[in-house]
């Protein structure tokens, strides 16, 4: 298994309000290489929180999250910053619908800084439907959809064995959404394991293996 989550618990404590909100109450799931598992559930049910726990952006209260690929294994629950950062460098990538843009850096250069060769980066952006004249422009000037393309390109070019996708097609038009899903499927066929949240679960054949619904902090098969 590339990803193995056991009995994961996560709550948020708001000190100012003296309040604790339980979000995940014993979630277990696993994702095999080349498998795409989709999380569904209403807004606020904890889908994104689950992805953020796996990426080390949120601190779980209890349980275990093991990522394993290429002979390397990391436990993310209770991991220190260096373990989390090492896992992100080699094992796990995250794409969200938001892009924290670096001012002044052109889209192509962002991909190049992540180790992507220039011509391949250009092809990837074009396939995702970003007009060529925009490749050399900073994404700070882009529309929401165009930024999302850059974000997705960054995640798909990273070649991590586990990809976390959070609403990555939310602001794309139908044609670009299709192109994005095609590319995601190609990565899956190459053996990348995926845990994803989609507002509209793609019906494209062969992409989604399982849909799990987050309900009252638990996971149930949809």
């Amino acid at each position, binding site marked *: 298994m590339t990803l193995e989550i056991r009995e994961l618990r996560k709550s948020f404590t708001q*000190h100012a309000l003296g309040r604790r909100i339980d979000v995940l109450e014993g979630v277990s799931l696993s994702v095999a290489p080349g498998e795409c598992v989709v999380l569904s559930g209403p807004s606020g049910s904890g889908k994104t929180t689950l992805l953020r726990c796996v990426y080390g952006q949120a*601190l779980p209260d209890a349980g275990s999250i093991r990522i394993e690929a290429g002979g390397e294994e990391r436990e993310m629950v209770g991991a220190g*910053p260096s373990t989390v*950062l090492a896992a992100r460098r080699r094992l796990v990538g995250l794409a969200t619908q938001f892009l924290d843009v670096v001012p*002044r850096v052109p889209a192509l250069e962002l991909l190049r800084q992540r180790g992507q060769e220039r011509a391949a980066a250009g092809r990837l952006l074009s396939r995702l439907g970003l007009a060529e004249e925009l490749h050399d422009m900073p994404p700070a000037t882009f529309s929401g959809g165009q930024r999302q393309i850059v974000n997705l390109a960054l995640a798909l070019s990273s070649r991590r064995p586990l990809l976390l996708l959070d609403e990555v097609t939310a602001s794309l038009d139908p044609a670009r959404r299709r192109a994005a899903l095609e590319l995601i499927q190609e990565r899956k066929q190459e053996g990348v394991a995926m845990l994803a949240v989609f507002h509209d679960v793609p019906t494209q054949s062969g992409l989604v293996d399982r849909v799990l619904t987050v309900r009252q902090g638990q996971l149930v098969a949809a």
Partner: protein
Amino acid sequence: MSAVLELDALTVRYGEGCPECEGSGPGSPARCTRCGTVWACRDVSLEVEAGDTVGIVGESGSGKSTVLACANLDRPPTSGRVLLQGEDVTEVRGGARRRLRAERLGIVYQAPAQGLDLSVTAGGNVADRLLAAGGRAYAPLRERALDLHQQMELPAGRLDDRARSFSGGMQQRVQLSRALATEPPILLLDEPTSGLDVSVQARLLDLIRRVQLERAVAMVIVSHDLAVIRMLADRLLVMQQGRVVEQGVTDQVLGDPQHAYSQLLVSSQLQ
């Protein structure tokens, strides 16, 4: 990997201390109500590896700049140690300290006047640091200063202008070129972008990002601007009343803050 910069239980206090404040735990005020001793920073430990950037955030007076001043050997801590590449340099003084600073430490202060001699030319400020690190011949010094000047996107024609005649954003870039002149393994940045307009800030951030990508420096950045920290720092320390109250991976601390003060800081940020 071993740490390039290590701060070990740094404490700086102004005053003699008393049994009450010396024994006090987390949450105690920075100024002792009984003896008046001010604890500028207390038990601050930090390790930075090559290619790693650590951010420090916290309210004014929380001890961020004190930590940076100790790391730059500007002031000795009351207790604790500063290690550069594994070597304990806490007690190093005089010429040896000047040389350490010139060769291993680069700093950009919030106020350009602190990091530059404003009555000297931009090139002279850079050359001064190269001289401190053992440079002698004029031609290579000038060549290096000009090269850095251009890397920082400063107009080549102004290398011989006095630093005083430069704008704030340009002075920060002169500071950065001075800091980088000797290719030190450690770069310390104290509010490098505050007081700059957004376009100049973006240019400076881009330059700092390039330094991160092209040179494997160990970097510590102090800033009030969480967006700047989010962009530049891999790890983050949150300080309050001289103590580190929370630390972790930057997007985790800013996205899922655990301590009451970190939560306040994050929720106070303009979106």
